[in-house]
Structures are given as C-alpha cells and as structure tokens.
C-alpha cells in the first residue's frame, strides 16, 4: 500500500525552468556578433570569411580533440568554442596567414580553456589568450594591418592568407592556382591603425571614419557605430552585464579626458573611445561571464581597472593598443575581486555581520 508508484519521476524542486540555456546565451552573443561579421566581410572581403572560418575550425577541432568529456565532443554543444573562434577571428588583422589563425584557435581553446579544466574553469578569456599567443609568437604578422580599399574587389584575396604553414611564402603553383580561381591576389600594403598613427607621430583619423569603420584595424573592431548598437541591444537582452562595458568606457573617457585637459597633444577622449579595439573589447571580451566578476560591485571594479590600464598602456606604454592586456590583467584579478565584492546578503551588513 505504501509502495512507490513506479511510473512517478522523482526530481528535486523547482519543477519549472526559465527555459533559457547556456547554448542559448551563446547563440545570443553569436547573433549579436553577426552584424560585426557582416561588416567585416563588407570591409575586408572574402579574407574576413576565411580568417573567421579558420579560427573557428581551429577552436572547435581543439575542443573536440582535447576535451576529456565523454562522449568525446559533447562539450562542443554548449557553443562556447564556436564563440571563442569567432571572437578571436574578429580581433585579428584581415591579412593574417590562415595557418596562424588556425594556430590561434588551437591556442585559445587549448591554452586558454581546456588547460584550466574546460568551460567555466578558465581564468582568462580564451579568445584573448589565443590573440595574446599570436601576438607573442608572430608579432609582425599580427601588427600588419591592411588598409581597406587596397582591395577593391570582394573576391580579391590577400596573398598573405595563403602562406604555407610555418613560412611566409606562397609557392608559385599555388599563386597561379589562386589567381585562376579568385582573380588577382594582392600583396599587403601595410597601414598604421588610427592609434598607431597618433602614437608614433602622425595625423589622427577623421571621426566619421572611426565611427563607420573606414580605417585599418582588426576585422571586427573598426566600425564603432555597429559595435555600440549591437552592444546596446545585447545589454537590453541582458546577455551580458552592462556594468562592465559602461564602466570601462566611462573610465577611459574620464582618465583620458583629464590627461587631455592638461596636454592637448594626447588623443582626445572621444578618439580614445572610438579607436582601436576598445569598444569591441569592452562589449564582447571583457563581458565574458566566466572571466569577469559575477557580482555587480565586482563588475564596476573590473571595468574601472580595465579602463585605467587601457589608458596607461595607450598613453605611456610602449604599445599603441592595450585593450587585450588590460582585459587579461583584470581577468587575473577576477578571483580576487570576486572575493572582496560579494553581494551584501539580505539582513546583513556589507561585511557579512548580521545587521542590527
């Protein structure tokens, strides 16, 4: 009489779920990236497709090959590897040799994620680890920016894309083959990014170019306007914590504004905000939930930290761009921030004492 009814499922409460899943969130971010991908293709032609695709393949293949989860590859389903690949691709220059892009994807997942134990365990943003690896391994290739418009035709490809792995050279037969299929291949004419221009003596790019993306730079970082729009949409969909980009941008604006007031030779706050990878980094990379603080107060600290480091590196460091290192450094500080910036528990003071 008191036996168990065998058909009844015993599952712990709650019995309702919101129905939003982690792959769904990843898909949200991917959709939020889609306009940037399209813009990259518009600005840089077929090269952009190739770079993005190669990065993604590198990332997913590594996830499949190295992840210990059984059945093998089940961790691909959460979509994070694809996202990492796309974001990595968007912060690479369009003319990067494809073998390097592939290697970047491998490093991003291998060094950036799986080494720490997989999704959710990683300390650093995987895409940025991949990017930092490439920057350290192939500093020339990754800082060779090509100006938009050097290739007028969509199908025209950058010759450097086709370098044979481990070299910077394309065999003649391949060159002929490529020209037969895609039309003329072009050698990269390198061009400085707006930030490098201003850092190493030169004129600033016009603002509307910065806004619309008509400058040299990484695939995804050039069109400021698009990033802002996508960022606002994602923030309203609560795909990421709006506090992080907002605090980064405000800090950069404030810090560089103060410097600019005293020294008009330094770039203006607006220029700082719109140029380089700042917007892209603030919206798509600093907001990676795994590697940024979880609590709201922590998010503010994180954002302010990133902003300050960006300004420090850009104005006084040896590099023209500092967003990548700023985010990586604050990633490293995230566990610490999480420790000191826990939410104030209900009925308690901020230090966790029972409130009187």
């Amino acid at each position, binding site marked *: 009489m008191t036996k168990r009814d065998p058909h009844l499922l*015993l599952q*712990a409460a*709650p*019995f309702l779920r919101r129905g939003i899943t982690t792959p769904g*969130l990843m898909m949200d971010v991917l959709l939020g990236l889609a306009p940037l991908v399209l813009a990259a293709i518009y600005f840089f032609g077929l090269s952009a497709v190739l770079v993005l695709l190669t990065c993604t393949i590198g990332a997913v293949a590594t996830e499949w090959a190295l992840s210990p989860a059984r059945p093998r590859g089940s961790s691909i389903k959460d979509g994070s590897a694809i996202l990492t690949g796309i974001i990595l691709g968007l912060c690479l220059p369009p003319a990067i040799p494809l073998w390097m892009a592939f290697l970047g994807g491998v490093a991003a997942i291998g060094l950036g994620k799986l080494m720490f134990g997989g999704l959710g365990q990683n300390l650093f943003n995987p895409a940025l680890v991949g990017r930092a690896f490439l920057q350290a391994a192939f500093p020339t290739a990754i800082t060779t920016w090509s100006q938009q418009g050097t290739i007028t035709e969509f199908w025209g490809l950058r010759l450097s894309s086709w370098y044979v792995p481990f070299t910077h050279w394309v065999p003649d037969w391949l060159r002929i083959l490529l020209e037969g299929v895609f039309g003329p291949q072009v050698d990269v004419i390198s061009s400085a990014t707006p930030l490098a221009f201003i850092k190493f003596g030169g004129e600033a790019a016009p603002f509307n170019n910065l806004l619309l993306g008509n400058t040299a730079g990484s695939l995804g970082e050039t069109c400021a306007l698009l990033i802002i729009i996508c960022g606002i949409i994602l923030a309203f969909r609560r795909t990421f914590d709006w506090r992080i980009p907002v605090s980064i941008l405000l800090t950069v604006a404030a810090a560089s504004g103060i410097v600019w007031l005293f020294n008009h030779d330094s770039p203006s706050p607006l220029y700082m905000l719109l140029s380089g990878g700042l917007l892209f980094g603030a919206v798509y990379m600093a907001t990676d939930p795994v590697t940024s603080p979880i609590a709201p107060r922590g998010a503010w600290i994180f954002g302010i930290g990133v902003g300050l480091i960006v300004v420090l590196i850009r104005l006084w460091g040896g590099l023209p761009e500092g967003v990548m290192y700023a985010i990586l450094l604050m990633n490293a500080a995230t566990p610490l921030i999480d420790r000191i910036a826990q*939410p104030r528990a*209900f*009925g308690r003071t901020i230090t966790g004492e029972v409130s009187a």
Partner: protein
Amino acid sequence: MSLQVMGKTFRHGVHPEEHKEQTEQLPIQRMPFADRFVLPLSQHLGAPCKPAVNVGQRVQRGQVVGEPGGFVSMTLHSPVTGRVAAIGPRRHPNGSLVPCIEIEADPYSTQEIATSPAVDWESLSLDDFILHVQKAGLVGMGGAAFPTHVKYKLPEGRRCQRLLINGCECEPYLTCDHRVMVEYAQAVVRGTQIVATKLGADSATIGVELNKPDAMLALDAAIPAGTNIRVASLKVKYPQGAEKMLIKALFGEEVPAGKLPLDLNIVVNNVGTMLSLADYFDHGKPLIERVLTVAGPGIDRPANLMVPVGTPVRDVMRHCGLNEETRQVVMGGPMMGQPLASLDVPVLKGTSGLLAFTDESISHAEEYACVRCGQCLEACGNFLNPSRMARLARAGRWEEMENAHVADCVECGACTYTCPSGVPIVHLIRAAKAAIRQGKAKAS
C-alpha cells in the same frame, strides 16, 4: 477605494510563468469523504503529538485524536466520523515512514462536526488565546506548517506592532489562497481582526499580488469601517511569499539574518490560517480541512478543493481525473514543492496544492558547465551567491559555505529556476545544509 495601483516589491527575484489561469476562476468545491484517512502525528514543525485514542475506538469528526507533545506541538483532530483502524507507521509525503493514526470513515455517518460552541475570544487573556489556537490545531498553511500559536507567544521586550497577512501566493499554479480571499473574504478579515486585537497590533496589512485584483476588491469590501486593516498591493514576483521578502517589499525593512520577523515587531500569517482561525473562534471548528489547488497538465478536471486533512492523495487525484500521461506528482507549489514517490500519502495541514506534470511539461534541464553568468545572483532575494554555493557544495567545502551564509538560504529555488546551465543549485544547497547539520551533530 484605498487600493494602490502601483505595487511594491523587493529587489531581485524571478518571474516564472504563472499558470494560474487553469484554476483561478474556479470556486472552491468540497471533496467527498474518502474511505480511509491517514493522520501523521507530526504535520507541523516541532514535537509530534501523542495519540489520544485507541485502535478500534469510534471517533467523531472534529474530535481530538492527538494531544500536543509540548509547547511547539499541536492538537490533532479527526477529519471524519469513523473508527480508528490502526496506529502505526505510514508513508509521509516526504518518503519516510512516520507514526500515523489511520481512521476508517463511517459511510453512514452524517459527518456532523463535534464542536464546542463559538469561543468568546474577546474575554480571553493572551495566554488563554494562545492555548486556544493550539487547541484548534492551527499551523501556517502557506506550506511550512509552523505552529501558529508559537508565533503569538511574544518574547520579552517584543510586541506585535504590525500584523502582516500573507496573500501573495507567488508560487505558480496555486490559486487556493486566491479563492479563499475571494470567497471567504469576510472570514479572513475577521480572523485578521481577532489576531490583531488579541496581539494588540497597531495595524494589520494584507499583502496581495497584483494578479489577484478580485481578491483585493473582495477583501477591501470586507474590511469594516474604523478598523486599521488595509490591503496592500504587490508586484507579481517570486518568492514574494517568503515572509522576509514580503516584509522588505511592504515595509522596506530587512529582517536581520538568522532572526525572525518578531525582531522587527512584525507577525506574519497566511490568509488560509486566518480563515481557519476565524472558523474556530466563530464556529468552534478546528483545523480539520483545508483548501488546496489541484492542477497541472496531468489533471483532467483542475479544481480548488476543500479537502479533509488526511485524505489520501490518490483519492484527490482520482476525484480530479489524473490522466495517463502524468509522470510527476508534486505536493505544494512547483518551485518549492515535494515530489511524491507514491500517491498513497495523505494531504497534510500544510498542503497547498497537488500538481501533476506530464512528460512534455516537465522541464528536463540539461546540465552544462556553469559559466558564472550571474543570473542566479540576480534571482536570489537573499542576495547570496548561489553560483559560488553550488561550486563549494560540489567540492564539499562546507565551512566556506557557512561563511558564505548558506544558512540564510530559504531554498526558494529561484536560482535553479533561472540557471541557464541547468545546475541543480538549490538541491546542492539542501544537501550541503544536511551535511553541515550532520557534521555539527557529530561534533556535539
């Protein structure tokens, strides 16, 4: 009209789909008497009661069958006229075997309630009043089944400044409190008035969420002029029915962690409790039956039912048409309820609903790695860090969990509801709490 249009609320929390449309318009029906009733001696928090009858003895509906086993314990009454068939272990809804009194209903009885006449509550001293509440067998009917009279025993230096009647019913599917407020508004208000008067409360507030406008109107109309009872509207949000959240929402005050509402001179009661209290003092009828909602996709004829306490769930389900596809039966609400392993368990004093879910309606959450998205932090009304709790619980780091105030968790399940990675956070927290308790028991 004194109704506020803009409701108050607390920070954080979640908005689950309400699913109340199935039953919220259905008037309360009376459930026919079952053949057998099972009365666990412990249907409340605290010491179980002691049987006051022998096997084979005839009992009348409303007759005392169990005497309280201490102050934090309740009197138990027979829900039916019949014969004591057995006293012994029976299955409790939580799965364990507990001592119960089993009563066989007399099919030919008229089921008159053995009542004393109405109690003249106005002349009672506070202590006598408390004794009467205990004798009425009243427990908190929102789900936790905390003995009501214990709440009225005010400690030294505290007084009941504000009486708060909880009519939020924030759990999805459940509509029994809603129907009680609509149909028994007079009695609810009367009960509130009795408690407010006896405890000497300055004011009494009935908090109702904005999705029950008819209940608000009915209550408002039932409040006699010149009393300081008012109806307050609240935004719809889960877990607003948790008393600490409700106090925060209505008064903006936080009950200190680990303390009771009484520390803010507030007493909180459920509307169902007020109805039963009024029944006792006006008609001498103890708590022998309650209103519960039977709903969910697995039920053919959803209903709000007045069910005698002790009725087997199987009978209730049969009455409402449990369909073939049902895969899960839950006692209570879908957020905090108890999954039933067997239908041969009784309805308790604290049972607010019986829900049946079919295969399609069960949320099978596939589990992914936690990406620290922070959704659970935004869901937690207690401002804890559930993501961290789950992580620590998985690692067995109990001490750190205690430092992270795991004891403050009310297990409302909002974190788990919202988690995109399908981590069973609240389940892990419950397990951790049990482990911590065990460790402490061992240590002492």
